[in-house]
Structures are given as C-alpha cells and as structure tokens.
C-alpha cells in the first residue's frame, strides 16, 4: 500500500464510524483504531526485518512510490532495445502512450513485451540491459501525464 492509499483509507475509516480496522496482506499490516478503548496490541506480530542477518542482502533495487514504477511481470533477462545496437524503447524523458512497449523480457527463449500502464513520461530506467530481473523488480520509474 502506498501513502496516498493509506490517506484515503484513513479518511474513509474516520467517516465510517468503525472503531477498529486491521488489514494484513502479503507481509503488510495495517491497524486503525478510533476510540481509546481497548488498546489491543495483539496485531503487532512484528518487528520483522531490522534484525535480519547481513550477508549479501538481495539487492533491494531503489524503491519509490508504487504508482510511479513499472515492475517486471516475470523473471527473465531485461532488454531495453528491440535488438543489440538499436535505440532503446524508452529512454529517460521519452513520452509514451499507454500500451506502448517499454522493454522486453526474455524467458524460455520467448520475448515478452512490457507495455506502459498509462500515458506517461519515462523518468528513469531501472533495469540493466541484458541482465536478469526478478519477478516484481522495478524496471522503470514513470510519471503519468
């Protein structure tokens, strides 16, 4: 969940007249409470993380606001251009239309096109040409227009 979504949720929650809301999804956890009443801190499962052993942490690629990132829909090799030596599909600054190809991901000798999710300007290319990307790795930072 992104901050903007959280703000919306808070607002709706305030208006709803509910006194408590807990939401857990894929490692994320949100608890909202209204009255000071029963301070049930049960939900707190978790100071995860922090204390995770150090060696070779899976290179957490730069994380930014969700809405602005295009992420890899599958694991494979990232290609910025249609063929070696050609122009990249989407250099920084380029304006692209929704559905236009941003890059290719090769998996099982098949090329998958990754389309722009909306009309947008490419702000940053995060994938590295010819290198492996994991499922969900950020590939581009974009700004919707």
């Amino acid at each position, binding site marked *: 969940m992104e901050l903007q979504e959280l703000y919306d949720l808070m607002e709706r929650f305030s208006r709803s007249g509910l006194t408590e809301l807990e939401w857990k999804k*894929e*490692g994320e956890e949100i608890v909202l409470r209204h009255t000071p009443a029963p301070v049930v801190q049960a939900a707190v*499962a*978790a*100071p*995860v*993380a*922090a*204390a*995770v*052993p*150090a*060696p*070779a*942490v*899976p290179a957490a690629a730069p994380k930014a606001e969700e809405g602005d990132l295009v992420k890899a829909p*599958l*694991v*494979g*090799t990232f290609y910025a251009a249609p063929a070696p030596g050609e122009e990249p599909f989407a250099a920084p600054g380029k304006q692209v239309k929704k559905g236009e190809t941003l890059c290719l991901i*090769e*998996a*099982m000798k098949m090329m998958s096109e990754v389309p722009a999710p909306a009309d947008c300007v490419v702000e940053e290319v995060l994938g590295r040409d010819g*290198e*492996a*990307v*994991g*499922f*969900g*790795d950020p590939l581009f930072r974009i700004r919707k227009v």
Partner: protein
Amino acid sequence: MERRSASATPCSGFGRCKGMLKRVLIANRGEIALRIIRACRELDIETVAVYSTADESALHAQLATRSLCIGPAKAADSYLNQDALLSAAKATGCDALHPGYGFLSENPDFADRCVEAELKYIGPSGDVIRKMGSKAAARTLAQQAGVPVVPGSDGPLHSVEQAKELAGQVGYPVLLKASAGGGGRGMRQVDRPEDLESAFQAAQAEAVACFGNGEMYLEKLVLNPRHIEFQIMADTQGHVVHLGERDCSIQRRRQKLVEESPSKALTPQLREEMGAAAVAAAKAAGYVGAGTIEFVLSPEGAFYFIEMNTRIQVEHPVTELVTGIDLVKEQLRVAAGLPLSFTQEDIKVNGHAIECRINAEDPEQNFRPCPGKTEFLHLPGGPGVRVDTALYSGYEVSPFYDSLVAKVLVHAPTRLEAIRRMRRSLEELVIEGYPTNAALAHLIMHDAEFVRGQYDTGFLDRNLDKLLELARTCDKLTASEST
C-alpha cells in the same frame, strides 16, 4: 592424517576445483536451499537463490551469491513454476540446477527441460526419475535385478477381481497402492476379503483426484515392519556405492519424525545383504547421483524393496554424520562429471547418529501446522550437535510451505550416548512464537521401547496418546515449579 586427500578434489586453497560447476541455481527454499549453498560455498561454486514474494527475507535468499524473485507466494506460481526457474537460471548464467527435495525434485519432465536448456540437472536423468517414479515399473526393475520385493501384483491391476484373487494368494492383510501415490494418499490397508472392493474404489478415486492417475497395485502387508532405507551414491563412470542404512520407522502417518543410523535391527550380515541389494537396484536403474532405496524389514529379518527416491533426502545428514561424507558435495561432483571421491571400501560407519525433525505444528491439535513469527530462537550447540535450519530470531515461518523448521542432529560413539546427547540438545532448543513437536521428540528419546531400539513403524501410532499425556503432565509440573 588428511584422509582421502589423494582421491578427493584436487583443489588449491583458492578458487574452484578443475572441472567443477561454476554457478548453480537452487530451485528450492528453506533449510535444504541453505544446505546446498553451504556445499557450493565450500567448493567455491557461485549460487543463485530463487525466492517467492513471501520469502523475501528468507535466509537462503540472503546467503546465496545472488538471489532473484521468481513469483508470488503460492508454490505453483514460484517454486513449482518451471518456466520461471529455467528463465532465472539462464538469465543469471547458471550452468547447473539443484532441485533439493520436494517441489520439482522428482519431476522427470523438469529434469529433461533442464538438460534441453543446457543446464546440468543435479540428479539422475529424466528417464531414470520417470522409471523409478512408477511404483510398478520400479518393482519390476528390482525383481529383474534379483532384489526381493513384497509379494503382490507384478504390474498394474486390471480389475477388482484380479486384486481379490491375488490377495487370496499372498494372504491378508494386503495393501492397495496407487502407482503414482505418495505420502499415504491413494493407499488402503485391507484386512478381510469382503472389504477389498470398496477399499479399491476409494483408493483409486483418491489417486485420480490427487495424482491424475488411477493405476493401482496390491501387495502383502508386512506386519510390524521397520522402514529401512539405504543411501546410494553413483557417478557417471558407473561406480555405485551404498553408505549404509537409516532407520526411519518413527513415523506419524508416514511422515518421518526421527531417523537414525545404524539401525538396531540390522546384523552386519543383514546390512551387507541389504546394501548389496540396494546397489544392485541402483545399478539396474542406471542410477546417477544421490538416491535412496527404501525397504520394509519384517521382524523375522526378511527385507523387501519398496521404492527408490531419486533425490537427496531430508534425513541425509544422518548418513553424513556416521560416514563423514558430504553427500551434497558429492552430488555436485557427480553432476560435474567427476568420479565419486570414495569407494565402497572407504565407507566406514563411525558411531551413531540421530535426527529429530522439528516442525512448526501443534501436537495437541492433531499436528495442525502453525506458522508464525520466531519471537526467540536458541539452538543447541557444543560437541556432536548439528543443526540444519533456515530459522533466525525474528524470522516469520510462512503458511505457504512446509512446516519443517529445523533438523536437530547428534553424533556420538554409541547409540545410548547419542540418545542422551539428543535429550540435552532438545532441552537447549528454544523456539518461541509458535508450537512445535520438540517436546514430543524429547519424550520419544526417553521412551523405553525407543531406548532399547525395539520399535517398528507402528511405534508412534501406538504410543502417541501416552506421549502426549506425558507432555501435558510435564508442562503442568514445569508451570507449578516456576510459580
């Protein structure tokens, strides 16, 4: 000193051995992924770990040379996703793939696809996996190699009538088994002729539902048997060596809980016979890599081939402790085309080893899996103790996968010393945040039958209520002491 140095890997202190693999994709998670990473590191082989979105903070993803997310939490979308695994291996330039156990480790098509993708598959060929994966085919193969099999159908059953006739010949009780079955599914015990038909239909329906294959066969049920398995290692040069047995008779609903080596049930002569049979079966299969030949052993000392597991087993460290052989390193050597680093004569069983599997489950609630956050972790240490685990303080045990969280192993000169060492190890073990079966394992280590070594596969079913009652009593005593 420095035993086996002559025949072992010709390595300098720096860099990889000549001819060794360069980069291995580990198509698994949890403690076995860690186990493989450790072997690779010690051979200077690079590792690529794969993880699902639920495993982002898992230890295997952190200790590998490199790690890559391959999909969402559901195993079908990640650890069982063949395309994702092969793409990850190719994109990262791996030259081999280790399947671990579970997941795709006994999937012959996946093994074939690895080879097609020019990845060395660390295990036997798809053909061998396929052959041994069919219980009927494996049985035939064993028979042809002169290895005794349980009296029963020599191929798939054509009809219930055939089953009835055969059952009459071998004598009740009999066991109906699905050819593709496993973990007790598609299997029924039949004590009387009048129960056979309904049992057949139920088992077959289950097999179709679970495995999409209703092929059935029948065998005589060996009463009060031991579950004895032999560890096999085979190389591409045709050498096949067995590394002694493991007694895996302490099971709950066919899930192993405690394993040990050597078995109290085997005389040296019986060990030699069974070992030779295991080697013969593996040779007949054209086996390559680490594998396990499973036998049932009757109280009278008659043994019968049951099946072959064509992968590394959960309980492989039991064998590593008594033989001093690193089985995963050998797997890597064999996959690289190198010969085994030992011969049958080099294998000496030293002392005694026991493994207890610690699962995140609640014995009081019918062993319901209990994922949760590891609030506190303290592992046993000191002499003769080995722990294989992917846990750490703060680690969240995921509800998506297996409930095995740690393997506690001990090694000591004698069986009794090993039992005592296991007791104190389990007393040192602290896992907070979810229930485990550790207290049950601890009580088994105090059970008179177990201590005498006189148990069979029915041990746990017979004694479970008694042991759980004891556990409750201990809990109460501890609680009243601490107030």
